[in-house]
């Protein structure tokens, strides 16, 4: 399926084709983003107010972290529908664990927080491991496996809490981590930047990252080249689970309670939308997380702009849907035109 892309880059005129592929991979997304920002700034000064900007950046950060994991799974040729449920599970597990440890070791905040973070991230890794093992070992489609684990994970999160928010986390976790600001920006943004930097490094400079591209691009070729498919596929799902869990923990720290209603279908669909609009091909093998981050920013700003423009919240999904389809369709048409050249 990616024969088109590879035959394209194999043509002479490397500089020209590099320029074209750069344009192709970034696309018109930044232009669209800048247009929305300029337009909104002209229409409503509230848009560039510091509170709104921090709000946008925080939401972008949360979406970016989930979308990075999602993008990696999709590049490997899979799908992770369970990320939204993992956000909820990690939030609940973190809060519950912190509450339990705090009850046995009152005052020992370092232990409480470490334990809570480990449990939360561990729960995400566990779900990712199940996803990965089912996909890699049993060769079942990622869509169905994660559809199953999505339901199961959401069920477990609700079982733990009975649907009631979980309190009892140490004050220092909420005050000094969740709601603190460095240089005027909330922690979530720094966490997202670190995640993004690590992911860029992983994708570009590590064998794991390169192999994921190879597996998603042409699984058979990757097998023949001696790439251990299973390990790497499991790795993508585990990483996606851990990153979703990280988002759940950040949300928990910000809100101050663990809730099974965090994440959900909305977060899952948004993460896939961010990845796809950011140029990650659902056929696998193509995509870069830094563009996914731009696309997450775009989606967040779009939602924010629709709110500020007082567009009926019921109509907003229509805009999102149309823009999403249009973005991908334009991208696809552009690719076809390039192939004809």
């Amino acid at each position: 399926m990616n024969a088109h892309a590879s035959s394209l880059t194999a043509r002479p005129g490397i500089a020209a084709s590099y320029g074209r592929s750069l344009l192709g991979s970034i696309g018109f997304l930044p232009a669209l983003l800048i247009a929305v920002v300029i337009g909104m700034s002209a229409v409503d000064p509230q848009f560039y107010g510091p509170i709104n900007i921090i709000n946008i950046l925080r939401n972008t950060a949360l979406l970016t972290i989930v979308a990075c994991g999602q993008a990696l799974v999709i590049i490997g040729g899979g799908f992770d529908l369970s990320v939204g449920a993992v956000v909820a599970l990690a939030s609940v597990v973190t809060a519950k664990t912190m509450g339990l440890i705090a009850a046995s070791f009152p005052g020992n905040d370092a232990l409480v927080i470490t334990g809570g973070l480990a449990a939360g991230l561990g729960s995400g890794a566990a779900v990712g491991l199940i996803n990965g093992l089912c996909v890699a070992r049993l060769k079942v489609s990622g869509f169905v496996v994660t559809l199953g684990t999505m339901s199961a994970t959401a069920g477990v999160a609700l079982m733990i809490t009975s649907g009631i928010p979980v309190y009892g986390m140490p004050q220092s976790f909420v005050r000094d981590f969740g709601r603190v600001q460095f240089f005027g920006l909330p922690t979530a943004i720094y966490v997202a930047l670190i995640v993004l930097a690590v992911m860029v490094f992983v994708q570009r400079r590590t064998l794991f990252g390169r192999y994921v591209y190879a597996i998603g691009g042409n699984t058979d070729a990757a097998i023949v080249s001696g790439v251990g498919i299973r390990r790497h596929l499991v790795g993508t799902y585990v990483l996606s689970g851990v990153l979703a869990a990280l988002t759940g923990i950040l949300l928990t720290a910000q809100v101050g309670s663990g809730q099974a209603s965090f994440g959900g279908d909305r977060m899952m669909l948004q993460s896939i939308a961010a990845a796809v609009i950011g140029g990650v091909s659902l056929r696998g093998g193509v995509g870069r997380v830094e563009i996914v981050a731009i696309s997450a920013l775009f989606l967040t700003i779009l939602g924010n702009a629709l709110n500020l423009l007082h567009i009926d919240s019921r109509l907003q999904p229509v805009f999102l849907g149309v823009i999403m389809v249009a973005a991908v369709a334009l991208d696809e048409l552009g690719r076809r035109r390039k192939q004809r050249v």
Partner: protein
Amino acid sequence: MSDLDLASPAATTPSERRVALLALAWQAALPIALVVLLLGFAAVDSAVLTPGNLVNIMQQASYLALFAMAQTVVILTRGFDLALGPTVSMVSVGAALAMAVGVADGQEPGTVLLMGLAAGFALGAACGVFNGVVIAYLGVSPFVATLGSYNIAIGVATTISSGRPVQGVPDLFSWLLYGGNLFGVPAAIVITVIVGVALHLVLTRTVYGRALYIIGTNPRAATVAGLPVKRLLVATYVLCSTLAALGALMMTARTGSGEPNLGGSLSLQAIAAAVVGGTSLAGGRGGVGTAVVGALFVTILSNGMNLTRIDGYVQMVVLGAIVIAGVVLDRLRLERRG
């Protein structure tokens, strides 16, 4: 489909016959599991096997079966329809609004009924045309295309209804699609059986139906063979959304009002039911049978768990595990067959 394998004259050597028998055993595994499941629940609570509850299960399953059939036709072509749930909501609200307008206009009951049906099916078909054109002609993947229409349909459904249930569904409509019965069989079951038989004939006996299997098995071969793949795909998404619209109208008749979130998580439920029944997301494998068996299985499971008072959250976990087990079994079945 395995009944074709069995019928093929090639299955004459002992080993081939054994493979065919094994395939038959796998095919029968789920229906047998269904019966075991029913008996198991009946052992815990005898209310499970009462005629009243059995009819109840059938009636509940008939909606899910319709939606699973809708998903199956597009899954056969390697697609799926994430927008099915929102389409259901939109059709429900649209049909109810059309009928409310008809009633307010003082139209005849028959005319009002027709207006409702026409509005519902038109909205459904419109969704299908959108999905099909975006997927077939613009080359957008089914996931993104139907995720787009998912958002659009939710927006339309909540906007035209202002987010509130639309009252005023006439009695005739409710009677025709829900309250009525044929020889004591509730309308929902009758409709689903008729549609199921018709769809089965279309999928197995018509050129169009066979073409869907070819597209799903090998899209390139389908193109090379001269099939109008794009037009067929559009037709298939229209078929899917129209079936969803029928289910939506039936559910609207049941609730007696147009509900802007009637569809809820139906998209994924219907995909899960189809897949549990043995429809392959890789395309080309499945049919009305797999959709119906899957829908029955999921419905009996949740009905039984309800009657035996298993916690709703535990039910989610069980259903998730069943979905995974279903595809794993399907995978093993494929590998056995070589």
